[in-house]
């Protein structure tokens, strides 16, 4: 169980068809793509800005592209990937809506995960007067790389407003799937998203 969220790898893999083309945005050291290459034989590419992570990806045998996500995905062609994944980094990106739309332009489906700000211990921290600091929000308010703070309910509302279809939501806490009330019990949210009116199949 690492901060990289290996707990969600199996669930993500379950959404992937063998041999797919997968783009992983903010791919870190390439662990997820390495896992998907091994388990699903995907043709994967990662996008990562940090130079040490870029080298780590190459060592992991993962194709990596050192692009800045804030510059968008305009160089990627429409429908060029089956899945575009963004694992635990949506909260670090400023241009949230354009990026989500771009993910669904480039990929048939998008897979997005993020720390849920409304997780019960986070609510308790706020109720006690302090910003939450936890395993998935490990930073102090003054040194956080996160620029967007939002909850599962917020994200659902955004998807509805933007015509983004939520095809599946799985919340996790302590590395295990959460059954009820994801916005209260979920530490991390994992979504499978599609374009509205384009079917539900993966």
């Amino acid at each position: 169980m690492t901060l990289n969220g290996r707990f969600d790898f199996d669930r993500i893999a379950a959404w992937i068809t063998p041999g797919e083309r997968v783009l992983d945005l903010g791919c870190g050291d390439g662990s997820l793509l390495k896992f998907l290459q091994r388990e699903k034989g995907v043709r994967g590419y990662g996008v990562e800005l940090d130079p040490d992570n870029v080298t780590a990806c190459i060592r992991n045998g993962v194709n990596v592209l050192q692009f800045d996500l804030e510059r968008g995905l305009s160089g990627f062609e429409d429908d060029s990937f089956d899945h575009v994944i963004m694992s635990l980094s949506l909260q670090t990106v400023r241009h949230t809506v354009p990026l989500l739309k771009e993910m669904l332009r480039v990929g048939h489906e998008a897979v997005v995960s993020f720390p849920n700000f409304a997780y019960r211990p986070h609510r308790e921290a706020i109720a006690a007067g302090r910003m939450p600091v936890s395993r998935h929000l490990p930073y102090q308010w003054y040194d956080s790389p996160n620029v967007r703070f939002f909850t599962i309910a917020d994200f659902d509302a955004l998807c509805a407003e933007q015509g983004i279809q939520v095809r599946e939501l799985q919340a996790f806490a302590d590395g295990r799937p959460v059954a009820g009330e994801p916005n209260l019990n979920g530490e991390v949210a994992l979504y499978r998203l599609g374009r509205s009116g384009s079917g539900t199949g993966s």
Partner: protein
Amino acid sequence: MNDPRSVGLVVPQTARFDQEILLKSGARLPGFELVYETYGALNAARSNAVLVCHALSGSHHVAGYHDAARPEKTLGWWDNLVGPGKPLDTNKFFVVGVNNLGGCYGSTGPMSINPETGKPYGADFPLVTVEDWVEAQARLADQLGIATWAAVIGGSLGGMQALQWTLEYPERVRHGIVIASAPKLSAQNIAFNEVARQAILSDPDFHGGHYYEHGVVPRNGLRLARMVGHITYLSDDQMAEKFGRQLRHGEHRFNYDVEFEIESYLRYQGDKFAGFFDANTYLLTTKALDYFDPAFAFGGDLRAALARAQADFFVASFTTDWRFAPERSREIVYALLHNGLRVSYAEVECDAGHDSFLLDAPHYHAALAAYLEGIAP
């Protein structure tokens, strides 16, 4: 010099090719010679060979030194990359450096004797292209018994050759490594080359390219050409940091002698270069740069042009390189992606401009070393 990471003293070799070569321009050479060096050992399967392609002023002398008494002064141009335990590890790879056709370091070029006239070719040496260089290099590979390169690597114009290899002989390259390069020159790039050429062509000592017979060289033209080139190889920031407005004499002297340190630096670089490089080779090499455009035959569609490639790729660019800017490398990357090819791309922060590819910025060499380690020998 007992550096365990140096390939040590190297002696260039010469390969002779007696079969005629038809060049892209339509011109023919009845035969030619290429000067080359090798480092490391070719394995039994002949599968660990890596070709290093040189840029405008480079040569076959990639690594090690030529004079044991003056190793530092006779070091290969990419010695920081190639050697035992270095990123391009000669314990693993058999590395080949070759002086291109039309060069001035011993391969057949404008300084060679034209068998038809018994005199140096001079301006009569045909213009050669990146495609022609690859063809000549392929003949060297044949002669060395190398059916497939583990990798072809190059920076700048060398990167163009690496890319061209993957298109001209897709089945003979497993990995293309294209650094600080571009799929074609921009109008600005060609403009700089044209200024360089005009500097040489207008030098009274040029004599239409037949200056050898007159016992002179167009030194001033070549010097100017190199000075212009040098400006474009450095970044504005780096020049400001290195030279700023520093004055040689600490005061303004109101004349045209060297006053600012940057003037001194450019004159030194120009003089040094004009002392050993051949002006005709410089001219034809700038034309080879200008002509390179694999998409030209595909209506400008680079994606279509790269459809032939089968290799895996590593592409790298440098943030302060404005001569071959990162955008140009990204064009290559996106075209490779379109064709479903495996590619990794590093955009390296380095303040040294285009010349960064010759340096060993930590993130640059780390990424390149990781990629090279992943190549099966």
